[in-house]
């Protein structure tokens, strides 16, 4: 982190590699569109770099980053809703998930994730985007292991239930 503060962009690239998928997933929960999520994640990392000097405890970088992404998502959503007000032609479906995979089941699952409570969504993102490492996920989300497992388990059960409630052809 000291190197990044000294202007070492390659060190920041390492942080980018480590956390970007998670931030994109978080942004995707709001945008429900991969391109917008990618753009928003870029914005998050740019803003984080500019304000890195304000971060007191480097151990809390991941939490700080998630905080920035939340803020960016809110801004994006606000802007998007204002845009919708003025563009009457924009249909509500524009906010629905745009398919990014040919596999219908995967798309349904991705859509189902966006319906989960935020805490459970974050647990899923952190676990599956950090190579199934519970330690990393716990550190990222600032949670205890037992707490994390409990939330992850709840998320997976809820997800399974959501998937079961879908029509047969979509499962």
């Amino acid at each position: 982190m000291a190197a990044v503060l000294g202007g070492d962009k390659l060190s920041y690239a390492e942080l980018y590699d480590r956390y970007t998928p998670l931030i994109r997933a978080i942004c995707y929960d709001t945008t429900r569109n991969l391109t917008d999520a990618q753009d928003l994640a870029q914005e998050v990392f740019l803003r984080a770099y500019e304000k890195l000097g304000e971060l007191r405890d480097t151990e809390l970088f991941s939490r700080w980053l998630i905080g920035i992404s939340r803020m960016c998502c809110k801004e994006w959503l606000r802007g998007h809703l204002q845009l919708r007000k003025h563009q009457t032609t924009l249909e509500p479906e524009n906010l629905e998930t745009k398919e990014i995979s040919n596999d219908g089941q995967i798309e349904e699952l991705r859509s189902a994730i966006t319906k989960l409570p935020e805490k459970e969504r974050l647990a899923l993102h952190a676990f599956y985007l950090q190579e199934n490492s519970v330690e990393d996920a716990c550190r990222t989300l600032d949670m205890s292991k037992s707490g994390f497992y409990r939330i992850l388990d709840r998320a997976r059960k809820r997800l399974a239930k959501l998937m079961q409630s879908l029509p047969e052809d979509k499962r």
Partner: protein
Amino acid sequence: MNSPIDEKLKRVYEVFYHDHDRLRGNLLGSLPAQPCEPPLSRNVFKLWYFLGGTKMKRQIVAAAIAAAIMLLALNFWPVNSKDGIAWADVVRQIHEVKSLVWVWNEEEIDSAYSAPKVKGRWKCYYKDPGMSREDHFIVGTTQPSVLPDATERCNRINIRGMTPTKSNSYDLAVLEKKAWIQITTFSPPITRLPTEAMAIWSKLGRITSDKTCKIGHKEINGIACVGFEAHINAFEPRIPMKGKVRVWSEKDTGIPVLVELQYQAKGGTYISGTTIDHIQWNAVLSDDLFKLPDLKGWKVEEVRSSSEQVFFSCTRLRNDIPFQVRRKDGTLILNVADVFSMKKGGIYTTLTNGKLKKQVEVFAVLNQEGRDKIKKIWAKGQNLELLADFNGKSQSAGYVPISNNGPGIMIDITSMNITPKEFEDNYLTSGN
């Protein structure tokens, strides 16, 4: 974690790695030369950095700190700072008081809308142990006061001095210049001093906290008070009545300042009441106040009485005793099956102006069935003068104590010409 949904989830998240290298290149290209410097002004002390751990741990620590602060605050907060007193504080004051002065106003309320009309007013004094005095003041009369030094017109004074073995009672009809002096000796010593003047306070002191509720705040004679209210039955449990008792106590100490008793008629209208005011808690009272005044020129009637009580060791009526209690017209009220035990007997001797009167009584404890029978008579308001018979020959008067819910009846056995000890020997047994 290798369930089918797990596999699918892995595939769901693959998409977030798409185009990663290109995007990283774009970002690095657009980054400014250096991140901003940490602002010096924002070097704020944050407790969280010291606590460390997960969010949940920090929340637990924060909750524990908050709880500890609250406990400390509760511990050191002056309990009586606002209206922290509870009914228990009032009761404690009543139990601990050593001397008291108060005015007892008996009121009559004609209707719910008229102001209470004072029927009688007593100024009461009490000094521990067992000294009491009640001065009755004339209400609504122009008669002159006979007591020369009295500031108010007083028509009756009752002074009592009581110890466990002796009671001196002086009842003075001031306007008529008549005095009744009653000196009673108790054997064995009585355990509870029946101080009439203190009865009101004893009854208040027996009301339990669960039967009271706070009714608010009021300033009485410049004293900030907290009010407590209870149903009149909590005050006088043995007499079935409707009404309420209110006690206004000093908000810092719990010392009663005003007591209001209100009795209701069946329809709910208040018919009578008692207000106790001008209360002086732990007032300095001279012993002379409780001494018999000079009775020169007065008509004096002196009664000397003694009570000798004996508690029976054999308490069961013998099976062959044909015990019955009848009304004067011969209707049977109780028989031997209604008696649970014979508890005690007593010889009561009275010497009035040289005339001796002796009365022997025994006390029968009734079982539930017997009590119900007595209660029925009491409820009907019928004449309670009963005739009790232990031996098929003699008849003696029996009576139910004033408290109709009491456990038994007193039976006068004077006509049997035996002492309580002889009664025990001839009529009682220890067997079942």
